[in-house]
């Protein structure tokens, strides 16, 4: 079980600040690093992988600074965004070279294991130069998995991977997280993060905008309307009562039944809703938050 800790980490290039005072702890399980392009995701991963010195602050793996600490790579598996330029090697040769560089006892067996995990056993005899983007991505992952690392860092791992393989990769990451590995991957696509990780770290313009379970993050934003759908035995009666409430911003009836409610004060609404229902004699059958998707969290964070 490994933990990566960033303490007030900043990184600047000349007078451009790429990462600004970020503190975060990446624990076992899957963490999604979410942010738009240019937010500093690659910089953060480079810092965590020991390929960038923080300008200020510390980056540690289980308490040991990672920068210039070569032995940390026994624990870390890194899948960079960079393309492989080893086009003259076959997939198997490349993964095997990685196994050898890790000084594994049985590099051949480890190679085959890693190749089978990413479903690349069959094309592994072909040169990397002939691979599709998705295949190269999987070979990169195999090379990062070959030494069975406790920490897996992936920079935009789903880029260019076809939908079927994407599902396969996602399942793989979830499984790795469930096994107690510390898995961190970056993405700018919300659906991807949502499907793999509950734990997210959001970076926007180099700043750590949010951290934690995305549902909780969402609830923390009380200054923004929250969407609910309430299904009752008398929608119209509830709707007419709700619109009188201070906490409610908008109400609309659904064609297929149910009421869409926009709430500005989550706490107040939670207290008032059962009372209103009782006063009006309306029976609540269902209450669901409808926009607790990363999309809304994210678009809100980005637009602020």
């Amino acid at each position: 079980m490994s933990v990566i800790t960033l303490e007030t980490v900043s990184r600047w290039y000349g007078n451009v600040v790429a990462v600004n005072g970020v503190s975060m702890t990446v624990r076992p399980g899957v963490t999604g690093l979410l942010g738009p392009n240019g937010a500093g995701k690659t910089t953060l991963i480079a810092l965590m992988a020991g390929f960038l010195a923080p300008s200020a602050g510390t980056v540690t793996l289980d308490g040991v600074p990672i920068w210039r600490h070569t032995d940390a790579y026994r624990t870390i598996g890194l899948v960079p965004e960079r393309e492989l330029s080893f086009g003259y090697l076959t997939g198997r040769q490349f993964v095997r070279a990685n196994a050898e560089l890790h000084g594994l006892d049985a590099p051949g067996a480890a190679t085959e294991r890693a190749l089978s995990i990413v479903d690349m056993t069959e094309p592994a005899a072909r040169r990397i130069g002939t691979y599709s983007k998705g295949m190269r991505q999987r070979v990169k992952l195999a090379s990062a998995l070959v030494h069975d690392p406790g920490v897996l860092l992936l920079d935009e791992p789903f880029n260019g991977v076809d939908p079927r393989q994407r599902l396969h990769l996602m399942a793989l990451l979830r499984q790795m997280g469930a096994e107690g590995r510390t898995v961190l991957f970056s993405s700018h696509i919300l659906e991807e993060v949502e499907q793999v990780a509950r734990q997210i770290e959001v970076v926007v313009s180099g700043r750590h905008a949010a951290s934690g379970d995305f549902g909780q993050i969402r609830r923390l934003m009380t200054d923004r309307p929250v969407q609910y759908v309430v299904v009752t035995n008398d929608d119209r009666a509830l709707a007419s009562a709700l619109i009188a409430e201070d906490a409610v911003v908008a109400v609309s009836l659904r064609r297929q039944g149910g009421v869409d409610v926009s709430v500005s004060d989550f706490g107040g609404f939670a207290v008032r809703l059962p009372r209103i229902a009782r006063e009006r004699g309306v029976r609540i059958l269902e209450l669901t938050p409808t926009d607790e998707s990363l999309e809304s969290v994210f678009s809100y964070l980005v637009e602020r």
Partner: protein
Amino acid sequence: MNATILRLSAQALAGRRRGIVLMLIPGIVVLLAIVVSALTDDGQGYEAVANLGFTLALPIVALLAAAAVLGPEVDDGSIVYLLAKPVSRHSIAISKYAAAWGATIGLGALPLLVSGLVLEPSDPGRAFGWFAAGAVAGTAYSALFLALAALTRHAVVVGLLFALLWEGVLGNVLAGIRWVAIGAWGREVGAEISPLVGGAGTGLGYALIAAMVVTVGSVYFAGDRLRSFTLRGDE
């Protein structure tokens, strides 16, 4: 030294078109020697061929070899795949150097010996003198160019400026450059074996020590640069 890195570097050297050009350059030098020896008397044109092989072909081969083992990987950042491993950076630098050095000696210095023996079979000492000069200079050249490749994206151009402009053009005009010119040190060593090589007059001790300092310092520097290798995003 790391056998895997050495093997990968050797594959990078031999692979593709670069390998062809690397073979072509010594091939041309030896071919020229064969043609000249067939058409002229024993020993004629020796100086011209040796000069071509030593002052032009050797540094270009060293530059091509050193740039090939490190340049593209640093350029496109794919060296992270080698660096994300619990392997000492200096051992990576030394392994890469070993591959570049082998290519430089085999394809830069050895052709000097071969063409020398072809041109003047009666005086193998002279050929071995040139070979020694090439080996010493090639050892230092490949190390220096490796350090340049670890330092800057423009390693090839800077290396060319050093070998061809500084040592070549300016070296012919300003005699003092012999103190800071790898080619001059090589000749000094070669002249010890056969005076016909023509030493630069820095003294054998200075030449050997200077070549060694440049070699060791450059390889160490390359390793140190790799230790601080920084991964940058595409942005």
